[in-house]
């Protein structure tokens, strides 16, 4: 679940201003300006004229701006901005990628929004998030809490939990498909030996989504743990001590002091999980391909199918913009709500 650009922007973008204020405090702020004044006094005024960033507001500076900006601006323009604008246009056409596209205005959007199966894709995606988020959050938080203490072999335990994070989604999906194989999988063998039921896992419409959730939680647990660990380590020790002095028990200290102070990390995990969860695709594509009987077809899976199976590029583009609006709305809701529960927000 490492932050994709989109999720990162949402989780951090909102408080861009905060970040900038913080760094201004930390660094180039007042003390710096002060020393700069000294600079001008000590060295001749020539130094002031040559200060980088202020020097030659004319063409010479424009040249430097181009030199430093073009290497990133050109690829971003060609491979992000232009496709993005083109995608808006594609979503307004009927196009099978082969013959010429025909303009159909908002027909694609109208059809998708009135088709009940569109809602199904969003519901499947939602079911994934509802199963996945509590698992990784509670698991990751507990592990971080325990592995923050001084323990023997602590770094081994941390590494063991983290190893799946660096494994790619496709590998995770394949390995879990094999572990959860209904006939010869190790999980069902163990369940059978214990005399328990043996579900059909990813081959059973009712168990397919839980299988995907299990595999995804296994992969992302370590990432959540690292984020929560970083949060725990940023809590000043004297706050904990003060609570202990006041007679708080271990659980009270966690519930009333530590956990509320972790709310920025919690917020980061929740926002990123929601955004990444809404875009879930790789593990679904490999584990179930959207099946059985469409039980796990998610929104991005359908975007893929519309384009490359059914040759309906216009519908695919429209669906991707509907998804984008949903992500934007949910994230905006998160950001609006954060003041109520995130400390220092």
């Amino acid at each position: 679940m490492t932050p994709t650009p989109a999720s990162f922007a949402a989780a951090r973008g909102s408080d861009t201003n905060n970040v900038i204020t913080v760094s201004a405090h930390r660094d180039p702020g007042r003390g710096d300006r002060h020393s700069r004044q000294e600079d001008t006094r000590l060295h001749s005024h020539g130094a002031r004229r040559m200060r980088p960033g202020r020097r030659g507001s004319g063409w010479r500076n424009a040249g430097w701006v181009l030199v430093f900006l073009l290497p990133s601006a050109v690829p971003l323009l060609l491979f992000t901005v232009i496709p993005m604008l083109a995608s808006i246009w594609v979503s307004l056409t009927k196009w099978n990628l082969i013959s010429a596209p025909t303009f159909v205005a908002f027909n694609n959007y109208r059809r998708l929004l009135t088709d009940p199966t569109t809602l199904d894709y969003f519901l499947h995606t939602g079911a994934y998030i509802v199963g996945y988020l509590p698992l990784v959050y509670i698991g990751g938080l507990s592990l971080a809490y325990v592995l923050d203490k001084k323990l023997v072999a602590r770094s081994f335990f941390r590494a063991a939990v983290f190893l799946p994070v660096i494994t790619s989604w496709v590998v995770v999906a394949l390995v879990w498909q094999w572990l959860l194989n209904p006939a010869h999988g190790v999980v069902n063998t163990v369940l059978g030996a214990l005399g328990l039921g043996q579900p059909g896992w990813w081959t059973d419409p009712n168990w397919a989504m839980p299988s995907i959730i299990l595999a995804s939680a296994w992969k992302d647990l370590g990432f959540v743990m690292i984020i929560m660990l970083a949060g725990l380590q940023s809590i000043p020790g004297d706050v904990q001590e003060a609570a202990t002095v006041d007679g708080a028990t271990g659980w009270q200290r966690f519930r009333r002091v530590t956990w509320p102070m972790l709310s920025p990390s919690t917020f980061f995990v929740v926002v990123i999980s929601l955004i990444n969860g809404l875009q879930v695709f790789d593990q679904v594509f490999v584990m179930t391909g959207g099946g059985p009987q469409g039980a796990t077809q998610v929104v991005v899976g359908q975007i893929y199918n519309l384009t490359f199976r059914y040759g309906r590029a216009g519908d695919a583009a429209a669906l991707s913009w509907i998804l984008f609006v949903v992500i934007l709305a949910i994230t905006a809701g998160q950001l609006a709500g954060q003041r109520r529960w995130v400390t220092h927000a």
Partner: protein
Amino acid sequence: MFRGAPHRRITVRRVLLYLALVTCAAVMLFPFLWTVITSITPEGTLANGPTLLVKDPTLNAYRTLFATLPMWRIVINSFAIAMASVALQLITGSMAGYAFARLSFRGRSVVFGAYLATLMVPLQVLVVPLFIEMKLLSLQDTYFSLLAPSMASALGVFLLKQAIEAVPRELDEAAVIDGASHLRIFTKVIVPLIKPSLATVTILAFMASWNSFLWPLVVIRSPELMTLPLGLSALHGEYTTAWDVVMAGSVVSIVPIAVVFVLAQRHIVAGLAHTGIK
């Protein structure tokens, strides 16, 4: 087991805690162990149900794997594309970060805002038109097309701009007095001082490229150009029931990245943790 912490008493709670941790580590590591075991199990015995101790271990699955797919090429592709993407993002990101942090020009905040806006667009929105763009430029199914969407990332620009802003300006000014140009200040003064953030961008870019699946799936057809996730999914499509071969492929794709992880564990964890701290 408790030798490392002699001042602590061995309490029931502590024993339970360690038991829980050992169980947890076992659950996290078991899938890896099982992947290796399956890959060396003779094909015929897999259907008899799993065993921890393999009778007659064999490397046949690996032979089939390397005969079916150009695996060496695929592993090298994955590394090469990831490293090219890292290098490009470090160069483009730090240069743009310098422009936004140190050069004042008209419309700077508007341009920076436009950069940040590209972060909000998910890949799914771009996939269709990007594919068409590659087709129009006859670039589909090339290394360049794999790399195209990850040559520059506004996320990297954002992180590196923040880092450059935290570098005291006097350092630049001292260099200016010595007659250094922006390019010299950038390479000799700024870049050495923003190494921690460069490390974070390296890790984020590497993992994004290493894991990337949807875009390669859309744009790549030739086996020689495949990356590991794509190669594995192709293998899976071909050998639905040959789990020994599929697991051998998984082992081949886990081992290189696990080696990288063991060597650079501290940097990777610190780099990722860095993204979550406000």
